[in-house]
């Protein structure tokens, strides 16, 4: 019993340390809302866009996806998982509304929208495909092994926690509920934080992208 408790405590400490470390190493902690952030933005623009590290994810068609595949368009990325019934679908709906808002207001900068699943044990490419396209035909889904997910989430300012060895298939996953914006060079450019409101994100994006 005591050994179990100790093990549990160690897991909790490890997770807390990981979360804190992720937060710390992103460097966001010290950067006050960047001077380039639109006024009243829920989130911030990084003072210096941050290149992504190497990683190897897989997309909703089962094709490999690396950091360079983000280049050529602004990328809105939400990190979550498809077994999440509440904040993930709500956030993906917000991204679909952002897409609508941008089209309605004539923003011409090319954009792409992604869900990165931090739960590869359950979220296969097929599963991701039917999930993301429910929100928009053009939405894309990515996932990958823990090392690649750690690399991209750390760079994107996101923390998550998946149970190491779940006893059953209905475990819960903790994750940041933010939208990371990459610029067309594939660098982390801005972070939108909660509450995620489509019209605010769309107008902040128009200011950030300059059209």
């Amino acid at each position, binding site marked *: 019993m005591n050994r179990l408790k100790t093990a549990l405590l160690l897991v909790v400490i490890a*997770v*807390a340390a990981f*979360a*804190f470390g*992720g*937060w710390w190493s992103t460097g966001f902690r010290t950067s006050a809302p960047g001077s380039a952030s639109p006024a009243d933005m829920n989130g911030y623009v990084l003072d210096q866009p941050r290149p992504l590290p190497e990683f190897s994810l897989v997309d909703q068609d089962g094709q490999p996806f690396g950091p360079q595949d983000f280049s050529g368009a602004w990328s809105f990325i939400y990190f979550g998982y*498809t*077994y*999440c*019934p*509440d*904040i993930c*679908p*709500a956030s993906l*709906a917000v991204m*679909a*509304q952002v897409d*609508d808002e941008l089209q309605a207001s004539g923003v011409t900068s090319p954009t792409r929208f992604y869900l990165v699943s931090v739960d590869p044990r359950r979220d296969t490419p097929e*599963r991701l495909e*039917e*999930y993301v396209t*429910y*929100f928009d035909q053009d939405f894309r889904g990515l996932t990958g092994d823990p090392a690649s997910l750690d690399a991209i989430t750390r760079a994107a300012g*996101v*923390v*998550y*926690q998946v149970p190491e060895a779940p006893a059953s298939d*209905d475990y*819960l996953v*903790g*994750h*940041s*509920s933010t939208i990371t914006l990459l610029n067309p060079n594939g660098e982390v450019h801005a972070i939108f934080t*909660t509450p995620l409101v489509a019209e605010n994100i769309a107008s902040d994006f128009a200011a950030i992208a300059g059209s």
Partner: protein
Amino acid sequence: MPRSILNVVMVSAMILASRPLTAGEPVSAHDAWSRATPPGAKNGVAYLVIKNSGAPDRLLDVTVDGAVAGEAQIHTHVHEGGMMQMNHLETLDLPTGETAFEPGGLHIMLMGLSQPLKADQSFELTLTLENAAPVTVSVPVRDMRR
């Protein structure tokens, strides 16, 4: 004379019988809804407002038709360490007044959906309380995409 007394008794009985069983019960639920789910979704969610006009009570259990989902659980969200984490609550205290289940907060999680939840369908949830009588509420499903 006896006849008119009988009439009064019968009418009174009919009025009493036509009142809903829950009338006068201190706990009720309103504004229930559920989010339509993408194809293949394993979990769903329901929201509602529980109104307790009596003494503090406790929600002990929520049950859903087995044809809809395997299990209904009381969940809340905690925001800590930069993460949103869902927590399963065994029971939930219901103070006098309203307790709102809403996106990003308290929710009824439907574990193991038999089929995706489609807009315009509805299902029932039954709330078991420590003191008040059970409450059954109809939950309409809404497409919340755009």
